């Protein structure tokens, strides 16, 4: 089916719902084509290619909602989906805040947001396999200690997102993405380590070259050999950009409207207060062309926009959808998100920490004794209380220099103290995914080791 066919189908679902007695309805249709190849030890290991399609519906009957989805887009399939959502609306409770955005809030950003490149569906399988092979080869050839690998990969996706509602919104957009990675394994004596590097973009022109991906993955892996467990102590922590990004994810978890209205965030009720160091400005911007957090409208048909979340340390705005905005007596920020169905949740656009003016090398040079963190594992972040405790891997800083690798330790503190304790922010901001952060230095956290 063409884009127009699917738009027409979404419009038809809305009409069917109205005929069945829905007072309002929203329909999402998503289509995607996915290709993925993994090469290991220079040979193709797995190759997957497929397309899929699905439709989802949410109806409101008064203030009762019901949701359903199907991958069967025949008339029978759609009729069953509508029937199912209507049945479910009978068992939900009346919710005074449930409802669609107001008509004047609906809309779509104009102009080319550069989310889709025609070149992606035209990529040939042998070329994609080569890309993966070259990325892995560059890693394998980097150092004799890299004797094994979990492989090199190349993935490409194209998709179509269609959204219609009963208040006259009907629009759709295409998107594409490609990514390539290498995951080498290094061995020395009894120790084995792995690390990775991945590059993603809207098309291959935006990717780092495969040789670059392999080399960076290899350098990171070799750097982990000889890892030690350090003594338990309190020191300054430097998060490299790739892990600093997870801290942005933690901030998002604490400032999204769902967490706020349920009091499931340590930042509930803190609007206008100083919650971070003055160096911290966090922006959500869903309008920057070409980036992964960009879209013409959110999953309720509200245009994407730029929202200042933290400005010079002061909490300025939460990120909201229509429901949470009504709960909090505010306006939606165009951050509604959902899979194919259900009540909208919240996600961010391009959610990033503004760059500072020192390089990461300058930041490290200023530290007599500290821990440069290159990987975090585990889920030890509690945004209700702010308690933070995660497994960490990295490099020990001594007298302003990166020295030996460190592993099997944790770093712990609280998000409250970490945000207020950000003493330096690097100049190295790059947008490689929908969260982005430069290097971050936190004045002091507990490293737990021996």
């Amino acid at each position, binding site marked *: 089916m063409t884009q127009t066919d699917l738009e027409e189908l979404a419009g038809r679902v809305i009409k069917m719902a109205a005929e069945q007695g829905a007072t309002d309805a929203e329909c999402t249709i998503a289509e995607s084509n996915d290709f993925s190849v993994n090469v290991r030890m220079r040979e193709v290991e797995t190759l997957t290619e497929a397309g899929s399609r699905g439709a989802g519906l949410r109806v409101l009957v008064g203030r009762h*909602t019901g949701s359903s989805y199907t991958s*069967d887009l025949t008339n029978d399939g759609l009729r069953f989906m509508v029937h199912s959502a209507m049945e479910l609306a009978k068992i939900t409770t*009346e919710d005074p805040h449930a409802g669609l955005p107001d008509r004047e809030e609906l809309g779509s950003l104009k102009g080319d947001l550069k989310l889709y490149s025609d070149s992606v569906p035209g990529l040939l399988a042998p070329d994609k396999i080569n890309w993966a092979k070259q990325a892995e080869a560059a890693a394998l050839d980097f150092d004799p200690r890299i004797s*094994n690998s979990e492989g090199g990969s190349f993935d490409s996706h194209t998709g179509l997102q269609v959204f219609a509602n009963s208040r006259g919104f009907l629009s759709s957009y295409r998107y594409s993405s490609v990514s390539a990675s290498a995951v080498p394994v290094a061995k020395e004596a009894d120790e084995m380590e792995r690390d990775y590097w991945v590059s993603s973009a809207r098309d291959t022109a935006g990717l780092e070259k495969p040789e670059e991906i392999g080399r960076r993955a290899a350098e990171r892996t070799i750097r982990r050999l000889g890892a030690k467990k350090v003594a338990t102590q309190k020191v300054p922590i430097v998060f490299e950009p790739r892990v600093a990004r997870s801290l942005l994810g933690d901030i998002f978890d604490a400032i999204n409207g769902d967490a706020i209205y*349920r*009091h499931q965030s340590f930042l509930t009720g803190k609007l206008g207060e100083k919650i971070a160091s003055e160096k911290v400005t966090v922006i959500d911007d869903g309008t920057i062309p070409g980036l992964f957090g960009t879209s013409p409208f959110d999953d309720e048909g509200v245009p994407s926009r730029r929202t200042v979340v933290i400005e010079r340390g002061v909490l300025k705005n939460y990120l909201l959808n229509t429901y949470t905005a009504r709960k909090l007596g505010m306006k939606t920020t165009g951050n509604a998100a959902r899979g194919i169905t259900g009540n909208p949740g919240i996600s961010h656009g391009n959610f990033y920490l503004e760059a500072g003016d020192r390089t990461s090398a300058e930041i490290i040079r200023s530290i007599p004794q500290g821990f440069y963190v290159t990987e975090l594992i585990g889920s030890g972040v509690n945004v209700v209380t702010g308690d933070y405790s995660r497994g960490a891997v990295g490099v020990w800083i001594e007298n302003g220099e990166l020295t030996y690798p460190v592993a099997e330790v944790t770093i712990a503190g609280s998000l409250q103290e970490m945000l207020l304790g950000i003493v330096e922010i690097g100049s190295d901001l790059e947008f490689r995914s929908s969260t982005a952060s430069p290097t971050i230095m936190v004045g002091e956290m507990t490293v737990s080791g021996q």
Partner: protein
Amino acid sequence: MGLSESIFAQKFGITEQDLQSYLAEALSSGGDYADLYFEYVSTTSIAIDESIIKSATQGVSLGVGVRVISGERTGYAYSDDLEPDKIRKAARVAGYIASGPSKVEKTGLHDGPKRNLYPVLTAPTEMSLAERVDLVLRADKAARAADHRVFQVQAQYIDNLRHVLVATSEGVVTNDRQPMARMGVAALARQNGGMPQRGYSGGGGRVSLDFFLNEKTPEHFAKEAVRQAIVQLDAIPAPAGEMTVVLGPGWPGILLHEAVGHGLEADFNRKKVSAFSDRIGEKVASELCTVIDDGTIDSRRGSLNVDDEGAPTQKNLLIEKGVLRSYMQDKLSSRLLHAESTGSGRRESYQHIPMPRMTNTFMLAGESDPEDIIRSVPKGIYCANFGGGQVDITSGNFVFSASETYLIEDGKITRPVRGASLIGNGPEALKYVSMVGNDLKLDEGIGICGKEGQSVPVGVGIPTVKIDRMTVGGTA
């Protein structure tokens, strides 16, 4: 045969000839093996929040995955449409990685082995909505009534009924009907305007709705969630550094899942990228430790009659008295390692390639009285509950997040401490197990395991266990 009893024959008219022709198409450019995985899943979820049933969702997902194996190569494609042309196209795409004449001999199709570990006549998905809505209403009410300090409650109930049909080029056809249900309750409590604390409890399995009416009721999960939130209200900062750690029975078995389980999956060992590679027969734990992965326990969340490659699940001995005995095998790894499949091939859905996964992983009970274990610790921590965990299988380093923890002082459990991660190294951590309790308990059925982007339901279990040395990631 298996096919005729399956929904794919009855509802979609798939015949034996169809299966054979799709398999032939998959192997038309060569290959050593091919299989088809048909899946039809209907799902219902109901959620309550602020005492309002805010969402109820139902849906159906349907599709078929085609896999071709040629040497170490796997080709995979899927279709969410069961039209013959679409399946044939997927079969050709999956065969792209193979070349040369197929080495597979033509064979007829026959039924795989039969058994039923979850004889649920009416799956929860097939019950009335009202009965299921009642579960979350009861949970909400019970949690709010349990303690006046509770101010927010969320409860969710989810069930699904999954029909699968696997047909292989070895000539085996297997079908299975896999019911699943679970509910979870989260409660927030606060005292004197202080910091709120959250508690969570949930459970379920391959059960009928009776499970929630008679065995583990909404009230049970609600009270447990509230208890955990209330305990945390008085928690002090967790300690930092190496110390003695006692794990309580049940869900703390997640330690086994992270510390040894993933590292014993055969794909990592075939590729020699696991910290446990080439270590069969070596001592990797204290002799008090015997660890099993068992996909055959009745009605459990991690159990399956057959795995997602059509092989019967088994009770697999992973570690026997501290010695590493076996890896968990799927079809591909067992072919390449000249071993037998251990029934461990699992996948999230028809859109995913199967790989070796755990089912229900637990440690056998020992002989110590749990109270003696606590009494033997002059200074340490007792972990009663965990959030999630993660492992780097190559270095073997793993973490897991303690959500309900207490100090042990002079052989007594004293004050609750705040959440903290525990970190250790897989092949080393269990060598420090010095006491194992006689109180083996399986978790209540809430586990979800993620690997390479695929989530599958699993179970864990452990008796009370004393680990003499482990790093605790607190701040105090």
